[in-house]
């Protein structure tokens, strides 16, 4: 098992080291790192903007690049949190707690140095996990029939919508909306147009690019316009030599890194708990086991190393269910899956055997990408820090152009630009009502496959709805769904400790903000 995995990995390096693939990987991580640093731009918006540009390139290059944007932005986000105290990206919100005090003490450079090392350690572990775990998962998943696939998707959707940010009920509502948007267009079996309102442009369904750019582009811009304050660049003068941590700092950060990595990789295995939750849990754990918990929040290097390592290990781990089962854990993964589907590749357990170049090339490119990121971040820190000062008022109008032209170029159809405007308005209204639109994309991407497998399962079982609990594996998934719902209700009625610590963290943050 191990030796085949290593042979496959060797093959993957062959693919990823082809010059054009290295180039796409480099562009991906570079752009990712850049948007990670820029306040007000997230990986979701960026991947959706870049998605139409990848139609012309080969699937391997496209996926390497889009994945690179995702993990690259995690490196950049840390810079923003540590030097500016701006949690522009949710996974790095906890990094602010100790990162910014370190900056004020003049050790911001060292915190960044530790971040780069922790990120690399965390990411390396996440990739290793993917190499050995995915083939095992695939062996199991290839035995699944339509009923099992259906229950597994249900579990994925439920986990993705209830464990993410905000109210679980609203998350479920958004997922159902996503599934419904996935229905728009011609029915796969009978060809009946559904929910098209008689508009011929909608017969092919809603384009994923239009949906993603409406929800994460236009709606986000409407939310952020005039809301971002001028950044305080007082502490952003970081030079290359400042990055080196002292021996003492490194000694303290090292065990925290490994603990963070472990927590992150565990969180990655539970669908729906992405990097944000991983970073919160690891910070809380680190604080708990520390001998001096009262010093957290005043600039403890452990408080930077641990959440950063866990974020990165969970970011890489997120790719496991996406690539091996075809079930994305969050909106970013849904987009990457959407990109695969646009390239004509059917996601699912057969992906590794049918397209080994994509799977193993992607894994190998993770190593290459992470090494590029370390190289990019260390000597070029000055450049990234400069980027922090680009004002939002220049960013979003430029992004608007990319939104328009990107949507237009998917089908050369002006109608879709109008679609984006409408989706943007709806998305903003949903944001105002406290709905987080990320699960919409999850439902949208899984919807058609969910319906297809559901119909197939019903056909095979001759209309017996109980088939989902009669098959043992499927029954396990359904049981986990029920467990998830029961857990959510229990959490609502009686908040457990983890939640309580999160609330404490949040109040801590508010207090420290007030003290500024």
């Amino acid at each position, binding site marked *: 098992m191990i030796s085949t995995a290593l042979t496959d990995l060797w093959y993957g390096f062959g693919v990823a080291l082809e010059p054009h693939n290295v180039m796409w990987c480099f562009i991906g991580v570079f752009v990712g790192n850049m948007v990670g640093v820029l306040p007000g731009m997230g990986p979701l918006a960026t991947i959706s903007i870049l998605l139409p540009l990848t139609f012309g390139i080969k699937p391997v290059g496209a996926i390497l690049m889009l994945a690179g944007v995702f993990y690259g932005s995690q490196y950049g986000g840390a810079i923003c949190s540590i030097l500016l105290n701006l949690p522009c990206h949710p996974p790095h919100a906890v990094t602010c707690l100790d990162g910014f005090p370190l900056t004020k003490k003049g050790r911001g450079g060292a915190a960044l140095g530790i971040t780069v090392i922790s990120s690399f350690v965390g990411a390396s572990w996440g990739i290793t996990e993917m190499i050995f775990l995915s083939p095992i998962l695939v062996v199991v998943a290839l035995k699944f029939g339509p009923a099992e696939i259906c229950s597994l998707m249900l579990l994925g959707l439920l986990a993705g919508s209830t464990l993410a940010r905000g109210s679980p009920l609203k998350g479920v509502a958004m997922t159902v909306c996503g599934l419904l948007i996935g*229905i728009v267009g011609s029915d796969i079996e*009978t060809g009946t147009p559904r929910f098209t309102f008689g508009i011929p442009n909608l017969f092919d369904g809603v384009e994923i690019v239009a949906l993603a750019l409406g929800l994460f582009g236009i709606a986000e811009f409407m939310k952020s316009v005039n809301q971002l304050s001028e950044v305080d660049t007082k502490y952003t003068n970081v030079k290359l030599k400042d990055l080196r941590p002292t021996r003492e700092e490194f000694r303290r950060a090292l065990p925290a890194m490994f603990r963070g990595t472990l927590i992150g990789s565990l969180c990655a295995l539970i669908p729906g708990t992405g990097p944000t939750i991983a970073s919160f849990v690891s910070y809380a754990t680190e604080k708990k086991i520390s001998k001096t918990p009262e010093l957290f929040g005043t600039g403890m290097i452990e408080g930077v190393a641990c959440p950063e390592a866990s974020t990165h290990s969970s970011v890489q781990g997120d790719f496991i269910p996406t690539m091996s089962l075809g079930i994305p854990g969050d909106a970013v993964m849904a987009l990457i899956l959407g990109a695969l589907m646009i390239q004509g590749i059917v996601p699912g357990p057969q992906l590794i055997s049918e397209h080994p170049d994509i799977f193993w090339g992607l894994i190998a490119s993770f190593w290459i990408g992470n090494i590029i990121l370390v190289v990019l971040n260390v000597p070029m820190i000055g450049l990234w820090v400069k980027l922090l000062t680009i004002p939002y008022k220049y960013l979003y*109008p430029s992004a608007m152009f990319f939104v328009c032209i990107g949507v237009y170029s998917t089908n050369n159809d002006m109608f879709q630009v109008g679609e984006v*405007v409408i989706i943007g308005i709806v998305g903003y209204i949903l944001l105002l009502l406290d709905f987080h639109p990320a699960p919409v994309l999850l439902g949208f991407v899984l919807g058609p496959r969910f319906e297809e497998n559901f119909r197939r399962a019903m056909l095979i079982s001759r209309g017996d709805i109980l088939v989902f609990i009669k098959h043992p594996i499927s029954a396990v998934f359904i049981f986990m769904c029920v467990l998830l719902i029961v857990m959510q209700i229990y959490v609502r009625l009686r908040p457990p400790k983890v939640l309580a610590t999160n609330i404490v963290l949040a109040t801590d943050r508010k207090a420290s903000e007030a003290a500024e």
Partner: protein
Amino acid sequence: MFGTLVKKRDFYAGGLMTLLGAAITLDSMAYSLGTLTHMGPGMFPLMLGLTLTLVGVLILGTAVVTPLSNDENILPKNREWRGWGCILAGPIFFIILGEYFGLVPATYSCVFVSALGDRTATLKGSAVLAAGVTFFGVLLFSYVLKIPFPMFRLGH
């Protein structure tokens, strides 16, 4: 009780989802439902519509039981009508000018109008930004990626 209920954000959130769910349930009846074994095109939407209605009612239910919080305003404190208007006007300009005059005017107007949404934006600053984006955008999309969108055209 009803008086405080209509002030809550979740009342509108739940209401919206309930209405949407009900509308979809009704609409899916128009397609053939089929049987469970041979599902017609209407069956899956019907199930989703019912689920959405149920979830909407549950959200409404939580709105009834949770006490009124201090922040129930749906619109943010600063109403950015100018920002919102400009951001939405950008793509609309892009559609109209792109359809009749080509890529360059479409790009320029889209960036220029969107940029005006920022409260500190000036006409001159926006014009310069729009010119820059147009230059690089046209270079990238027309020359490198070669999308079929003429730089200039008159009429349709």
